[in-house]
């Protein structure tokens, strides 16, 4: 049942992705992106990645559409009509790359395979020791905040630096206006 749901949701995602690439009107693209976010949150829930799904829900519903729209307000709502001619060289190149990538996936362990190497490195220790060592019911939090505390520190730093970067790029002229 869950596999079936995953496949159906992935199909929906693919349909929307194709539509987004075909549509020129950028407002429509933003709306469809919102739809993509809703469906991928559903997919993440059905794949049992609840914390990631929560992030997707919060960011997709609260922030990302807003930021897209604000960017559109600064630029334009219509995509420029670029070169849309069919190019056979590009097509062949893309097909070969795609075929290589698909060939590469053959060596990857099956989806959800419990004997995959990644599940035997350190995850086992986290899963079995976490209730005794950390004592927090949500294991994602104990991994994120305690076992992988350095990672999360790095991520938070990245968020702050990214924010500072945007503020430096876009905030300059406005800062002056503010102090006037």
């Amino acid at each position, binding site marked *: 049942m869950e596999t079936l749901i995953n496949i159906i949701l992935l199909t929906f995602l693919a349909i929307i992705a194709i539509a987004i690439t075909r549509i020129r009107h950028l407002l429509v693209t933003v709306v469809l992106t919102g739809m993509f976010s809703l469906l991928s949150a559903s997919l993440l829930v059905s794949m049992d990645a609840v914390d990631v*799904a929560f992030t997707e829900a919060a960011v997709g519903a609260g922030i990302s559409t807003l930021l897209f729209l604000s960017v559109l307000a600064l630029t334009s709502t219509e995509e420029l009509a670029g070169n849309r001619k069919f190019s056979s060289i590009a097509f062949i190149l893309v097909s070969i790359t795609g075929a290589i990538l698909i060939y590469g996936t053959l060596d990857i362990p099956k989806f959800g395979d419990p004997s995959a190497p990644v599940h035997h490195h350190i995850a086992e220790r986290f899963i079995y020791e976490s209730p005794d060592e950390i004592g927090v019911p949500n294991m994602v939090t104990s991994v994120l905040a305690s076992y992988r505390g350095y990672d999360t520190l790095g991520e*938070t730093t990245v968020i702050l630096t990214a924010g500072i970067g945007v503020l430096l790029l876009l905030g300059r002229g406005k800062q002056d206006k503010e102090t006037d």
Partner: protein
Amino acid sequence: MEHHLVLRVIAKFIIPMILLFAFYVQFHGDYGPGGGFQAGVIFAAGFILHALIFGLDHTRKVLPPVVLRVTGALGLLLYLGTGLAGILLGGNYLDYNVFAADPISGQHLGILLIEMGVGITVASVMLSLFYIFAQP
């Protein structure tokens, strides 16, 4: 004269709930899905709704951009400070076991503190980004 009446009244009603829900997500990351990042984004979303309905100028008065810049850095400092406190109390960097008599409550306290740091930083950065982009 008062045009978006429905939006205004419902926003007044729902904004406090969004903010409280953000705090709920922040402090219950230990027990269910959620944590600092999600909470920060939801908190920012509450303020964004306020800016959409009542105007950016009003929101900027409630939470000035300068304050956001300070709190954004403070959140990260809280994280870093929690790590340093581990060293000062005789453990390793970001080792929470030494915060309390037994490791479990020490871990609990440490996780609470760093999640708070993450939440403050994320909320501040998200709102700053929105302010910058939305300013006409």
